[in-house]
């Protein structure tokens, strides 16, 4: 199966300067691709160029064999790309139910809305259970689940999830990762950004490491998890197989030395 989404030489940034300096990344259909990297590497910025919140300065974003680089957020939603941003994104003073309905804002077909609501309620019981509660009164974990539930109202092909497990307790975190697995079982494609790299890579078929504005390393989720250098640099603490050499010298290899080991294809 070919790539559903591909970024080719994407350069983007804000007033202060460039953040992405030529990002190449491809996301295969019905898989979870997990993007990891240090704070400020530009992971959220990558997602913004995919959802259309930020227009790249150069490079192209292709989705479903179509160049979508210059399309608006609205047009990308129509093509089935939804973005759950890093910050809380529910409307706090609206009910859970209205929040979910907002997910179908661009959908005019009432029959479709009704049938998707039924699906959402079945997949995410909390939507029914707390339907009249104000979204702002839910816990952080509950809010995240409702945010993910809301994306389903668009029947999306590609879901962009920006650090969905941040600030959650272990149980809610597990629930979020289980939900992500469910999504791909239902045929959705997920591009996941995770600070919690170990759990993120564990649910991912494919992983990529962003650093210095470029994708430094790509591979299957498992291969990145097993890579001792990746473990030391990005997964923190103890890796499954720790590099004896670097432990002996007590010197961490510089991030740049990774590229000497493995080049992205």
């Amino acid at each position, binding site marked *: 199966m070919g790539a559903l989404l591909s970024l080719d030489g994407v350069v983007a940034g804000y007033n202060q300067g460039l953040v992405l300096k030529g990002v190449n990344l491809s996301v295969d259909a019905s898989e979870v691709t997990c993007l990891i990297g240090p704070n400020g590497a530009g992971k959220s910025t990558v997602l913004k160029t995919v*959802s259309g*919140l930020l227009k790249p300065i150069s490079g192209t974003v292709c989705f479903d064999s179509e160049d979508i680089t210059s399309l608006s*957020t*609205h047009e990308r*939603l*129509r093509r089935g790309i*939804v*973005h759950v*941003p890093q*910050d809380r*994104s*529910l*409307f*706090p*003073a*609206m009910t859970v139910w*209205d929040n979910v*309905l*907002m*997910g179908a*804002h*661009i959908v005019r077909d009432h029959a479709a809305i009704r049938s998707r609501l039924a699906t959402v309620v079945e997949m995410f019981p909390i939507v029914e259970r707390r339907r009249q509660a104000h979204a702002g009164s839910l816990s952080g974990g509950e809010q995240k689940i409702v945010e993910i539930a*809301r994306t389903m109202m668009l029947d999306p092909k590609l879901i962009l999830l920006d650090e969905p497990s941040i600030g959650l307790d272990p149980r809610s975190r597990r629930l979020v990762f289980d939900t992500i697995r469910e999504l791909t079982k239902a045929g959705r494609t997920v591009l996941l950004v995770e600070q919690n790299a170990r759990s993120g890579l564990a649910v991912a078929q494919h992983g990529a490491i962003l650093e210095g504005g470029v994708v430094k390393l790509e591979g299957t989720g498992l291969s990145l998890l097993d890579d001792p250098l990746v473990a030391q640099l990005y997964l923190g603490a103890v890796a499954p197989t720790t590099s004896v050499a670097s432990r002996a010298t007590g010197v961490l290899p510089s991030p740049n030395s990774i590229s000497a080991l493995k080049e992205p294809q």
Partner: protein
Amino acid sequence: MHLLVQSIIVGVLTGGVYALMATGQTLIFGVMRVINVAQGAMVILAAYLSSSLFSSFGIDPFLSILITAPILFVLGFTIHATFLRRLRPEQNELSLLIMFAVALGIEGVLGLAYSTTYRSIQTGYVNRSFTVAGYHVALVRLLAFGLSAVILVGLFLLLNRSRFGRSVRATVQNPTSARLLGVEPTRVAAIGFGLGAATAAAAGAVYGLVYPFNGGSHYDLISRLLSIVMLGGLGSLGGSVIAALVMGVAESVVAANVSPIWSSFTFFAVLLAVLVFRPRGLFGVAQRGAL
């Protein structure tokens, strides 16, 4: 006792009209974070329009709203599209100056088009009144109150039950997130601004029936409206309605039982008291910006 109850009745009826004016302002603040200091000028503009429609074509002021509301909607929409849309978030303070300039512009145009002498709309029924259980009720004030109530309920239903209303509330509560769901925030803001201005059309017709006015009347009006929306907790629709009733009653009770001279001061006295004891207005943070 009779005087007190009588003045409370008048206060509630007046408060209903204040509520209508304050609601427009609250809506505009909600969608744009703009304190619309031109809301008073828009009300006076609408009062003149209704007055002219009555004197030239014999159109009843209440009916004239059907004509003036679309005009003010377009005015509000245009002000947004011409001046406010260009502002970046960090320039938001400028909006206050822009709206002040709009108020002065409206005042200037009214000064050119009409003389500065006070006028009022004199329909056949303006002075009609009736007595209920010994209390005196002026017909126009009762109609004005009823109209305000109907418009407020309509606005409430629009915001809470319709797809457009949901997108307005979403934009107010989280603009980025609304955009990610396909809402066009500038469009919502422009329509919200237009709706806020359109409520001034209804308020203007009613104002012209109840009070004499001239081009400069908006200064007095806007100071009252600002007190009301501050008291209600900026951005809360329910808050501004309750604050409008509180202020209307306070003003009327003081005017009838103490002295009319102190009645406009009452506004600021109540406002100061509330700000000292409840600095965020009657409806603190929980309601702020929630619409």
